[in-house]
């Protein structure tokens, strides 16, 4: 564990695009870093038989998600040579076109950041107790299913 500072993991509502620039800027003093790999999840306006998605409402088993996220984080720091890792997930309503997931992994050489970021995104989808409910323009709702 190279970094001890605690960030919140869950953010209420959409993650502002500006946060990506602000967080990136903070890393300019970490001059051992050579590569940043970032993943952003954006809410899509999917057309389902029940209607057109206009937002997703996220809920979570927060305590379990945080403890599971800590496990994932430690596993990836053990597996890859990383400088730092930051992850944010929305809770509550995120409208179409807005960001609901922000994953940010930095390392000295690119391969570690890229591979760890890709693996982290899969683990977040697979292992974290978070649920999205799709809200349609016609006010119908359906629980999201991950692919």
């Amino acid at each position, binding site marked *: 564990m190279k970094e001890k500072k605690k960030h919140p993991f869950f953010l209420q509502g959409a993650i502002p695009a500006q946060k990506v620039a602000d967080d990136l800027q903070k890393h300019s003093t970490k001059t051992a870093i050579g590569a940043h790999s970032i993943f952003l999840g954006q809410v899509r306006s999917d057309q389902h038989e029940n209607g057109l998605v206009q937002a997703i409402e996220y809920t979570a088993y927060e305590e379990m998600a945080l403890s599971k996220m800590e496990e994932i984080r430690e596993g990836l720091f053990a597996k890859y040579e990383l400088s730092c890792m930051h992850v944010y997930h929305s809770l509550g309503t995120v409208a179409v076109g807005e960001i609901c997931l922000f994953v940010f992994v930095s390392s000295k050489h690119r391969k570690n950041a890229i591979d760890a970021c890709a693996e982290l995104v899969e683990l*977040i989808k697979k292992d974290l107790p978070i649920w999205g409910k799709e809200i349609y323009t016609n006010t119908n709702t359906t629980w999201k299913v*991950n692919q």
Partner: protein
Amino acid sequence: MKIQVLFFGSLTDHTRLSELIMDLVEDTNQLKQVIMQSYPGLKMAKFIIAVNKQMIQENTILKKGDIVALMPPFSGG
């Protein structure tokens, strides 16, 4: 002390509540039986169980104060 049961995601469509407190039962299989009597909609639902934030695969003995979470497939991200 009793057992706290948490419901998440689509399961709350069947239970209309996200949390309940029930008397101690033997194990998670018995808990499922009791819960499904009250909320028969859960019989058709797909879910996994966590006891004290640890996912379980098999029937698990319960003790006073345990927190049991019923969770449908995750769909974060």
